[in-house]
């Protein structure tokens, strides 16, 4: 049952035409053309930009966990590596354009991810998860201890320079949002190409049956390390967005184990091995606490202080995850697909034409 649901959610046939394409076009029109005109600063700063950064991190983790089947609890560490790398590149190599800094930050994160991916050649499942946990603690410890990384700032918190791309300064909330949107769109396109390619197929093969994958000549070790490298690259870039477009500061505490779990939850709730899943999961994770706060305030008024909010967030989120794991392991993506099929089925019955 579970396997079947997973299989349904993760099949990647060689599509000639993706019915999702018009939908994606529409989303891009809204994201680029309409939102910048109608959204206010709150929407950009509290919702849209963190949503984009987290969705990208979820996308990165999904490659490793959803597609290649390797569990990781170290995502936040790779975000930190990306963020600190970009900060130091911008600080120490002032002449280099920021787009290059981002790429290099991703490469640094990929190298660190590769290093911590080495145990995956021997370990799997629970043991691998624990070894990625080591990455999480080690990286956070290094950024706490070694002052050089935060330019010897006494508090350990550093402000990042203003975003500036090809001479345009992206100072405003809308500017930082558009920057994040562009990076996320470009990376998502590349990831989509990747998962549809023979290499993407090899990732899933590795996940579903490693022995069979070896027998048919998939270079298992190489593909595993590739998954770690690509995943960490993307999560590193997400870390850059988190620091430069969203928070505008870098500090080790922002990249703790909680964040790693948050990204894992995004992937689980959204749907393993689904690109849409990362976006759906991130949307839920970002919007849900805000909704909960509003709802709590409306229902309980002054009783609903930040302590109660924090606690109720954890409880509701926990319940949500357990519910998803039990009833819909393929996540929001599968729920939406089912809803869509039902609607489409109704239209078909009534004889109306279906497009998209």
């Amino acid at each position: 049952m579970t396997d079947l649901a997973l299989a349904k959610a993760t099949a990647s046939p060689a599509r000639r035409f993706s019915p999702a394409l018009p939908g994606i076009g529409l989303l891009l029109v809204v994201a680029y053309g309409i939102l910048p005109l109608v959204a206010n600063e709150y929407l950009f700063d509290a919702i849209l930009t963190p949503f984009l950064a987290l969705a990208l991190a979820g996308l990165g983790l999904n490659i490793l966990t959803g597609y290649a089947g390797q569990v990781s609890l170290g995502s936040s560490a790779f975000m930190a590596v990306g963020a600190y790398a970009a900060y130091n590149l911008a600080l120490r190599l002032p002449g280099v354009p920021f787009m290059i800094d981002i790429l290099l930050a991703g490469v640094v994160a990929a190298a660190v991810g590769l290093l911590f991916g080495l145990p995956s050649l021997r370990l799997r499942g629970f043991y691998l998860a624990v070894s990625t946990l080591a990455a999480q603690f080690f990286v956070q410890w290094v950024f706490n201890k070694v002052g050089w990384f935060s330019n010897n700032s006494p508090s350990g918190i550093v402000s990042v320079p203003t975003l500036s791309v090809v001479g345009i300064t992206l100072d405003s909330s809308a500017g930082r949002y558009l920057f994040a949107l562009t990076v996320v769109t470009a990376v998502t396109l590349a990831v989509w190409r990747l998962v549809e390619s023979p290499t993407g197929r090899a990732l899933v093969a590795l996940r579903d049956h490693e022995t069979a994958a070896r027998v048919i000549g998939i270079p298992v070790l190489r593909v595993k390390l590739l998954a770690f490298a690509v995943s960490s690259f993307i999560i590193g870039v997400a870390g850059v967005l988190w620091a430069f477009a969203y928070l505008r500061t870098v500090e080790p505490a922002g990249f703790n184990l909680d964040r790693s779990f948050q990204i894992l939850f995004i992937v689980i709730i959204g749907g393993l091995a689904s690109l849409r899943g990362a976006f759906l999961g991130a949307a839920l994770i970002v919007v849900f606490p805000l909704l909960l706060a509003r709802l709590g305030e409306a229902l309980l008024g002054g009783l609903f202080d930040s302590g109660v909010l924090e606690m109720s967030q954890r409880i509701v989120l926990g319940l949500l995850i357990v519910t998803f794991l039990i009833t819909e392991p393929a996540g929001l993506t599968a729920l939406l697909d089912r809803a869509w099929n039902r609607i489409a089925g109704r239209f078909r019955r009534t004889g109306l034409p279906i497009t998209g």
Partner: protein
Amino acid sequence: MPAVLSEPLFSPAAGAVSSALAVEALSLSFGGVTALSEVSFAVAPGEIRAVIGPNGAGKSSLLNVVSGLYRPDRGRVWLGGHSFASVPTDRLATLGVSRTFQNLALFKGLSVLDNVAAGLSHRLRAGVFAQVIGLPAARRERAEGYARAEELLAFLHLDGVRDRPAGTLPYGMQKRVELARALVARPRLLLLDEPMAGMTLTEKRDLSGHIRAARDDLGTTIVLIEHDVGVVMGLSDRIAVLDYGRLIADGTPDEIRNDPVVIDAYLGVAHDLEAGEGI
């Protein structure tokens, strides 16, 4: 000694090199359990060779040694003129060897087409960047792979389910997808571990036809583990019989059918079969 064993089974040097597959004095044990004991035999190119024997006789262990998943304690494996103390699994496909597994070993989350196309993985040359960017060589390679896979789907009558996730198919069909994945690379040697287990009579007959066609049309040498004695007798050129890890007979179906040792060890239980299924 039964008649079929009195002639020299195997002359290592000369025989092994000209064979599609030869194993020489293979021994393998797990803790105290002997899975294989001094097993030697050779399979000629283009031959369909069955391996039979009761459960736990060491048949799967034999295929696992030949495909490098198990490392034998002693003995050697000859594949297409190369001799190995332990077969390198990573190079198996390049050596022209494909296999299926006793338990389903499909990539459940991939479509049927992708499962079969994955059988050509060892031939891929384009790097990941070339694939993502879509360089012409990468696109050609990918398109050729799918075209080959489609041919195999048609050959095994799987075209109707080409886009279905493999994990959602009925058992017998999944077995066929696995066969397609093994055949797509046009292997010189195909190892099949109980490919017909759990199939209906009609499905078995169909699959027998496909296996014979693979040999006749593609020249593939086939080593086949199968419990259905009726199928085995009809399909194979020669039969090797394992019992408690030892090779107790090796001969043509007729020789095996009349071998008292084999009847004692294995076919004894099949007397009913003989009447029922008309060996």
